[in-house]
């Protein structure tokens, strides 16, 4: 191969490092308006009055968009996958998190748009907020989500928990020499793209809309826009493909549908560029995860079984969280083979900014928990951390939590390479290990059933 595997320069690198790449914010058009959002100041409140009259009457204001202007107010990120939508594009009679958009104003300048936002009269009746996922199940807890309650309850139609059950967990715990439990709580992280959320929407003379988008997923976002606006895909042209950083946060299509509505209503091109403060405080970020792991372990260093409870703090609305927890459940053994499993995963809603995709979605916190836990178990056993990991590492034809055979696991090889690169001495036995199907000492009794059944 000549081209694949070569250290060729980035296709668009020169433009990026010389500032000549055209990003969405570089798009400027004659007559272009600028948008600003009115956002909820409360974590949880009823809207008792919403009056945009004064804002609409202001000089330089060309459109005020509220919930009444949205053809399809509620459309879920996972609606295509049969998971009901729960999040209104603009709040109607209730705000569920601080920063939730209530209205969008398009005006001659950003300053006028912001002043008009301030002139919109909203009366709120503030309600207690739920912020701790561990309290979501309690009687009397504030109810966060209209559609699902305080935790998602429609897995495969009617389950309120994403479950994995494999092998015989009670037997594993009965046979254990050691039972090690730990609790891991990972945090919310902001994607921090250099380019904040931004959109330019242009109403074309033929009735179409052109949308300059910063999305990571043009066709997904096309679908989101067309759903909210109830238009066929032929009527909207998404222009993008060159994104100033996303890291997952720009799958959300946070700015396109509202900017499009403002362009339609005003008949003018509209730009909506979020400030850094809005990006930090109101855009979807990585969600916090609460994870409790209990491993049943044998004295000679085998993980016989794992019980795990995961509570994902989704924020106020579902977005991709159900997907995230399902992915998390599929990978909750990490790079190890554990034949007996009992996993419960919940998507819990709290009155904070809805969380969304971020690099490592569903896994970053999980990998963190699993690998600290592995270290603790190894140390409790008095075992070398490499040895414990190499021993339990997945091998060809071992099966995943949902019973899929691993085709080409490289856990053994990456650990051996890491030991070699860091000058960590591995015993001859550990150096001789490979990804190959388990046999001999590497096929202890507790794994025989799994391998024997062919895994599938």
């Amino acid at each position: 191969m000549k081209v694949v595997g070569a250290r060729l320069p980035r296709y668009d690198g020169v433009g990026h490092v010389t500032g000549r790449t055209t990003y969405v914010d570089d798009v400027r058009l004659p007559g272009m308006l600028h948008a600003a959002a009115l956002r909820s100041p409360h974590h949880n409140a009823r809207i008792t009055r919403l009056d945009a009259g004064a804002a609409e009457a202001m000089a330089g204001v060309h459109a005020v968009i509220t919930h009444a202007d949205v053809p399809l107010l509620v459309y879920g990120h996972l609606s295509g996958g049969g998971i009901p939508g729960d999040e209104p594009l603009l709040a109607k009679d209730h705000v569920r998190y601080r920063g939730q958009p209530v209205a969008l104003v398009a005006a001659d300048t950003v300053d006028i748009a912001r002043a008009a936002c301030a002139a919109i009269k909203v009366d709120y009746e503030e309600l207690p907020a739920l912020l701790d996922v561990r309290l979501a199940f309690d009687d009397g807890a504030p109810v966060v989500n209209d559609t699902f309650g305080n935790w998602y309850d429609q897995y495969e139609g009617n389950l309120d928990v994403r479950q994995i059950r494999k092998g015989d967990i009670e037997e594993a715990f009965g046979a254990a020499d050691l039972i090690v439990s730990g609790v891991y709580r990972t945090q919310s992280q902001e994607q921090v793209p250099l380019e904040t959320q931004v959109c330019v929407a242009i109403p074309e003379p033929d009735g179409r809309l052109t949308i300059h988008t910063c999305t990571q997923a043009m066709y997904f976002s096309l679908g989101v826009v067309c759903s909210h606006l109830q238009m066929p895909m032929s009527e909207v042209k998404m222009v993008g493909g060159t994104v100033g950083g996303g890291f997952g946060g720009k799958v959300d299509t946070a700015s396109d549908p509202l900017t499009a509505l403002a362009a339609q209503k005003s008949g003018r091109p509209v730009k909506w560029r979020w400030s850094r403060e809005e990006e930090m405080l109101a855009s979807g970020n990585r969600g916090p995860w609460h994870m409790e792991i209990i491993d049943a372990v044998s004295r000679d260093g085998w993980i016989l079984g794992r019980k795990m409870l995961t509570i994902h703090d989704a924020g106020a609305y579902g977005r991709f969280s159900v997907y995230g927890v399902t992915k998390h459940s599929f990978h909750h053994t990490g790079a190890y083979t554990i034949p007996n499993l009992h996993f419960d995963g919940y998507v819990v809603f709290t009155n904070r900014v809805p969380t969304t995709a971020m690099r490592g979605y569903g896994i970053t916190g999980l990998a963190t928990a699993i690998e600290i836990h592995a270290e603790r178990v190894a140390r409790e056993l008095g075992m070398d951390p490499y040895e414990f990991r190499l021993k339990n590492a997945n091998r060809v034809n071992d099966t995943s939590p949902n019973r899929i055979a691993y085709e080409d696991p490289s856990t053994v090889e990456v650990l051996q390479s890491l030991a070699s690169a860091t000058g960590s001495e591995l015993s001859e036995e550990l150096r001789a290990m490979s990804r190959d199907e388990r046999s001999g000492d590497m096929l202890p009794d507790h794994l025989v059933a799994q391998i024997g059944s062919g895994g599938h």
Partner: protein
Amino acid sequence: MALHRGKGVATIEYPTGMNQNGDPSQAWIKVKPDGRVDVFSGTSDIGNGSKTVQSQIVAETLGVPYDWITYDNSNTDSSPMCTGTFASRATFVAGNAVLKAARQVRERILAVAARELEIDPEDLEVADGAVSVKGTPAKSMGVDEVAGAATFVHGELLTGDGAHLNPGAAIVDPETGEVDKPPHAAISYAACAATVEVDDETGDVRVLKLTQAYDIGRAMNPTLVEGQIEGGAVMGLGFGVLETCYPYYPSAEHRGDGMNTYHVPTMSELPDIDNVLIENPSEGGPYGAKGIGEMANNAQPAAIANAIYDAVGVWVTEFPITPERVLDALDAKRAGGGEPRREGRVVAFDEELSINRVSSTRTWGP
């Protein structure tokens, strides 16, 4: 006051493509009369380098120089459907779409060249921008000449289209989580070793070195892969010891609203980073590739936490591992606490964080 050094490791796996699959990508390609190649794909480049990698796949498959490729992902009118750039899918899934499109174009180039050279297309090969007869390299014609002949002699357009879809995997048993087919396009693997220095007076953690080994099937462009690995390492470092949207979680107050109040790693926090690339080509990826983008920030946080334990003998399992949390743990240890509950064969860490201690209704555990 003393500085303590420690080392820790972590190993991870990460799926390529959307969980449960079912995420299509499509591409089409046309060749200009001078043999230059236009690729149309709907894959957004978010800095991950998908324009570069997909162009490489097309150039390699067609046997033309990389700089003959023009890549257009600029809009949904001219580019076909791509589910998007997330889930580490742009190289594997969208890359397979352009690979299939390029194979079609290659066949058409060979078919036209076969007519021009009056030889069976199966006896032809294409490399370095020229079609030549296998075993008789002197008998050849440039791809530019082939494209010219297609356009002006044969009245044909050299074009191709491709689509890739790993079929959706369904959960066939919601009780057990069993699926009916693989829920990923591939799985990549990595391991990370961290060296840290902990200040036992301030609680400050400095990450001095990260060494990382990755098997991603095939490094399509090693420079870009190293960029993902090193950029990911820094993001993982930020997750490990610096960044949080909610400094007093679960409270939603005191959020950082700018670059001076939300702490991403800066140059002053960057450790030495060593990379090891391992290539075990995947079964179904273009030229054996697997995904790299999303896994690159996952191994560092635990490796750092484990290194902190190695350095000062405390576990911190609430993230990020701030100086305050390190000091609290050190204080507890000095006061004779911080140990797990040991009872018979049970070793229970972190019980104070469990839902069992906080919720009035939920209990969970063995």
